[in-house]
Structures are given as structure tokens and as C-alpha cells.
């Protein structure tokens, strides 16, 4: 019943990393590796998706993510159309399917969807015609699979393998689709110890059942880690019932050079961006030698090219 796979086990949509077999994840990472050098060439394009139309359907604004998808699609020679759809109207639900139907009538081959509701990408995937693929570019708190994949790509580039790593994810896991996708990818790829670190107000109920160890003390949680992933703390959560203040948060859950020193000496620091310096991460760490935050952005394009290439081929058989 995995809607993401074709009956013969190929990728049909990319909605979540939850439940995707390890072989598929590895194949995406391997394919992304091949796309890495395309950005270095004289002509930064391959003709793979020539004649395909990809629609970026952003029901929730995000310039960064949309741009990386757009660059990735263009490097594959696809035609890209960006649609930023306001979600203010009460009939936004109807608008989704109407929009999708309209674009399908314009011979869309792929929808890249960002929406504030968990499950929105599943909803669209269930509705579209068989030849259209859906890529989830972030749905509510549920999943952000391409971000999760690019993080795995980054880890593999710097650490070589997954089977001997301890990885810590720090911060607002409760509201984070990125964290959920990372957790599923890390556990599927065989990371023996995945930790989540944060105050009880920012960790989801029963998060252990996703295969992670829970820490409320950051210093204990960072000890011996190979990879430290910091999550963004949204502005609206910085004060109120979840957290008293961003200052107190930084004191106990912000990544400083002193806290990072508790991880392994060669630990890498990651962040999905955009960063709140001085809230979840100190500038010395963000710009320091262990930070791989900028390479993550570069890798994001190759990973998204890999995903789109794997989804778009073999559909006209």
C-alpha cells in the first residue's frame, strides 16, 4: 500500500522517507553523486528532462526551497513553472484540487508541493493522474524528504558510512518536518544511535517509537556524537507556553563551541537553514571548521536532481 512506489518497486512519488526501502534511499544518494559534477561543467545542464513540465506548487511561501528545486529542474532541462498560491481563502481545499486539475490539463509531469498541512502531498498524490509524480517539498510538520536526503548525502560525504555513527538532532522536533524525515532516513540507513535533544515541550509524544533516544540534557546528549544537527526554532515559538524566551533556550539548547567540544573531535555540525544565530546556534560554530552548513545547500541541488530524474523517467512506457 506504499503509494510512493510502483508495483515493480520503483519510485513513483516522493512524499516521505518513512517506509522507503534502504535500497531506494541509497540509489537516490548514488544518483545524486553523479549529478554533483554537472554544476561544475561549462554547460550546467543535462538534457534528461527535456520536454517535461515541472510545477512548483507552493501553498506556503519559501524562496529558498523553491529556488533549489527550480535550479535542480532547470539543470535537468525541464520547463519549470512557479506558482505561489495564497492560502488565505476559506475554500483553499477546493482550490488545491482545482489548481491541480488545471495544471494537469496543461500537461504537467511533476508537482513539487509545499503546504502548511501535514499530509497535503499525500492528498495530492492520491488525486493526480498516473503519469504525474508528486514531490513533497514540505508538508506541515510531517515530512521534508528532499531535505532529509540531502542531509544523508552530506553525512555520507563527510563520514563515509552510516553503520558506525551517533547522530544527535537538537531542538524543536515537535514542529519539525525536517527532523522527522531525518529520523526515518537515519534509522533506515542503519545509523545505530539517533538521539533527539530538546525540552519536553518541543519533543513529540512517543517520539521514542520512531527509533530514537531522548535527551533533555544537551551536554549528555552530545557526548560522543559524530554528527550534530541543529533545528531551526521558529520565531513564533520563542516565547509563550512552549518556551519562556530565546535567551533561556540558547543557554540550555543552543550549540556553542563549549558544548560542541563534548561531541567527537571530528563531529560535523549541520543545520537545514535558515539559521537563527544566537538562538539555536552560536556564530562561532555556524562559521567554524566543523560546520558543513554551506555544503548542505550545494548538495541540495544534486539530491533534488536525482529525485526528479528518478521520478520522471520510464513513465511513458
Amino acid at each position, binding site marked *: 500500500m506504499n503509494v510512493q512506489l510502483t508495483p515493480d518497486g520503483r519510485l513513483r512519488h516522493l512524499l516521505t522517507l518513512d517506509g522507503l526501502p534502504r535500497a531506494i534511499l541509497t540509489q537516490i544518494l548514488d544518483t545524486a553523486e553523479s549529478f554533483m559534477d554537472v554544476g561544475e561543467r561549462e554547460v550546467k545542464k543535462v538534457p534528461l528532462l527535456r520536454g517535461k513540465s515541472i510545477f512548483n506548487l507552493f501553498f506556503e511561501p519559501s524562496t529558498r526551497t523553491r529556488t533549489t528545486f527550480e535550479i535542480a529542474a532547470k539543470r535537468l532541462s525541464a520547463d519549470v513553472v512557479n506558482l505561489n498560491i495564497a492560502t488565505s481563502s476559506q475554500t*483553499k*481545499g477546493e482550490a488545491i484540487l482545482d489548481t491541480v486539475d488545471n495544471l494537469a490539463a496543461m500537461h504537467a509531469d511533476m508537482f513539487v508541493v509545499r503546504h502548511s498541512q501535514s499530509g497535503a502531498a*499525500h*492528498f495530492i498524490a492520491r488525486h493526480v493522474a498516473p503519469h504525474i509524480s508528486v514531490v513533497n517539498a514540505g*508538508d506541515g510538520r510531517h515530512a521534508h524528504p528532499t531535505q532529509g536526503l540531502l542531509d544523508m548525502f552530506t553525512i555520507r560525504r563527510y563520514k563515509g558510512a552510516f553503520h558506525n555513527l551517533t547522530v544527535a538532532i537538537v531542538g524543536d522536533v515537535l514542529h519539525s518536518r525536517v527532523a522527522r524525515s531525518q529520523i526515518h532516513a537515519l534509522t533506515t540507513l542503519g545509523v545505530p544511535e539517533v538521539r533527539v535533544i530538546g525540552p519536553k515541550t518541543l519533543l513529540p*509524544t*512517543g517520539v521514542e*517509537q520512531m527509533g530514537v533516544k531522548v535527551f533533555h540534557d544537551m551536554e549528555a546528549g552530545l557526548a560522543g556524537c559524530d554528527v550534530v544537527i541543529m533545528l531551526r526554532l521558529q520565531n513564533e515559538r520563542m516565547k509563550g507556553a512552549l518556551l519562556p524566551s530565546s535567551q533561556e533556550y540558547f543557554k540550555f539548547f543552543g550549540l556553542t563551541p563549549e558544548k560542541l567540544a563534548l561531541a567527537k573531535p571530528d563531529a560535523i555540525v549541520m543545520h537545514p537553514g535558515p539559521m537563527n544565530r544566537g538562538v539555536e546556534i552560536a556564530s562561532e560554530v555556524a562559521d567554524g571548521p566543523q560546520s558543513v552548513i554551506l555544503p548542505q545547500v550545494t548538495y541540495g541541488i544534486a539530491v533534488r536532481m536525482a529525485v526528479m530524474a528518478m521520478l520522471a523517467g520510464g513513465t511513458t512506457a
Partner: protein
Amino acid sequence: MKIQIKHGRVIDPMSRRDGVADIFIAAGKIVAIGEAPADFHANRVIDAAGLVVCPGLVDLSVRLREPGFEYRATLESEMLAAAAGGITSLACPPGTDPPLDEPGLVEMLKFRARNLPGPRVYPIGAMTQKLEGQMLTEMAELREAGCVAFTQADAPMTDTQVLLRAMEYAATFGFSLWLRPQDVSLAKGGVAHDGAVASRLGLPGIPALAETVALATILQLARETGARIHLARLSTYDGIAMVRAAKAQGLAITCDVAATHVHLSENDLMGFDAHLHLVPPLRSLRDRDGLREALRDGSIDAMCSDHTPVDEDAKQVPFGESQAGASGVELLLPLTLKWAREMGVPLLQAIDLITWKPAQILGVPAGTLAVGAAADVCIFDESAEWIVTPQTLASQGNNTPFLGHPMPGRVRYTLIDGHIDFEARA
């Protein structure tokens, strides 16, 4: 019109009767069971050989969507659907637009219902004006207009002082209050049970605590005021434990559960199907199994459909934006039979939960096949298996999480006041 129901397996929970017998109906009443009265000449003979003949079902929660939401379903369509489900009496909550908070509205509904074929309609009046949780309604007036109890329906009850006053006032007249325990603050923003599945899917959660915290308040107020309280739509294991304990202490409370929640759990949410967006949310397997057991041991007094027709547009949206609720009048009997089979519960005990017991909660003369009672009868084929599809449902709302599922038990005839209101096509 005189009707003879021949050779059926007659099950009447009130009298503990379970055996093959003939039933004789005249002038809208049951006149004899077993031997025909002298000079009885049936105008119509229903051959019920191999079928079960039981009291018409009494459903404690059916949203008829009138007034105000006729586009989702009409009184007419839902009354017919209920009859097709074997239901002969139903309670309708006041969550209409406007809510049933004035006698005129209640009288209008009763008048509309009386002139349509289908079940007897028992309105539950609004406990507070406009269901806003602030000012009490004229409960005594509403009672005279036909309300059998009072409730906030699904509207939040934020002010505990008003709740206390409502109980005191209702207790003054001996009226029953129906309350669905849910702490509005703890449930804020949630769309699914706060547990491992919602965490995985990133759906904002409603903790089980939202039920138990509200329940603690209600039980304590009920002890103090002596108000008659019926707890609607329990969903948690811990909530049932509290009710069980309160009953053991002698508190006069009753409670019900929705048939959906007896079969489904949070695990069914994995595909984000908006048809599984229900209120209260589908909870953990432990909670569901607690409900199933509590029905068996009698801690839960009744099962209802909690019928909520929702138009397709309101479900064709992402889960969290969808309107909650499931259509269910036609699935109440099958889901009850399915539970009984899975739990090894005798048919008589199962049927009690959807006939005699809910009639007692409503305080209306229904739910029995006693001689002299109104001839409200459900005749069904216990061995029939069918698949739930929009075509096999009469309700205007096709919003059921059971689409495509096989169901046991199909209603063949529904008699209300001795009149055949529903007859299945052969």
C-alpha cells in the same frame, strides 16, 4: 393494517427473549408474540425464517443537518438512511444553525420530522444559548417542546461555573445533561490522538488527558449537584476506568461510545485519509480495546452511530483542514454485530446496546418488543455479508472510513408504528 412476522428469531433484550416465534401487529402495536390472537387476519405476512427480529434500533446521536446545513444532508435523506439502518428512534444533537436553543426551533424540527417517513426524532436541546457556554437556555420550556435532554454537543464548555449552574438547574427539574468530556484548552489545535502515530505523521495532537481532565471535573460536579449525567462518546481507556469507578461508587451516570471507535484506532490514520478525521479522535489500540471490553462488561451502556454527514468537498482537503465526522446510521447494526462476533458476545447482549439500553438513557418508550409496545421492529439477515460503497448507502453523506470494507448483517425490514418504513430490495 395487520402484520404477521412469521418464523423469525425474535430477540428482545428487555424480556431476555431469544427464540423463534411469530409476532402479530395491529393498529401500530405489538398485539401478540407466539400464538395469534383470536380473529387475527394479517393483511401482510412477512416471512422472517432465517432472519432476526429485534426491536427497532435506538441511536443516541444522529446529526440531521436541519436547520442550517441542508447542503450536507437533508432531514428527508437522513431519516430514510436511518430507517434503512434499522433505526426507529434517534436523538439529534442541537449543533444545527441556529442551534436548538428555543422551543420554536424544536417544535419546527419535530413537526418536520413527524411529516416524513422514518424514525421518531428526539431532539436534545442546547444547554446554553447559541451553545456559547455562557447563558443557560430555557430548559423547562424546551422540555415541554419535546427535548429529552440537554447538551453542549461539540461546542466547548470553557466556563466551569456555567457548567456547575447548568447541572444545578437541570437537577432542579430532574433533566438529564449529555456531556462529551473534552477539555477545550488541552484539545486546542489538535486533529488526531496525541500519540505515536500523530507524532509520526506530524498531525497536531489531542491528548487523552483532554478527556480525563474534563471527565474528572464533570464527575466531581455531578457528585455535588446530583445532576443526571450521560457521558457521550467516551474514547479513552483511562476515561472508562474513571467512569467504572464512579459507577461503582454509586454515581448515577451512563455513557456511550461511537461504533467507529470500537473498530478503528490511530493506526488507521497512516494514509492521511480525511474520512478518519473524527471527534473525538481515534485513539490508541489500548484505548480501543478498552472500549471493546467496557461494552462487554457493561461499563459502557450504549453504542451509537454518531452519524455526521459531511459533504465530499469538506473531506477532499488535507486531513487537518477537513471537517470531522463520519456518516454511520447504516453501519450501526453491522458494526455492533462485527464487534459481538469478534468478542464472542451473544447477540442478545449486543442488541441490548443499540435498543433497550439507549432507550432507557433517552427515557422514552422504545427499544422493546413487549406486547402492547409500539411496533418498532428491525428485521435483519445476520448472515448477509456486504461491501460498503456509496451505492450501498442511502445517506447523503458517503463520508465513512469503512468504504470498501465488508460488513456483516443487512437490514431487510424496518417497521415504525406498525408501518413498513423500509424494505430491502430482494
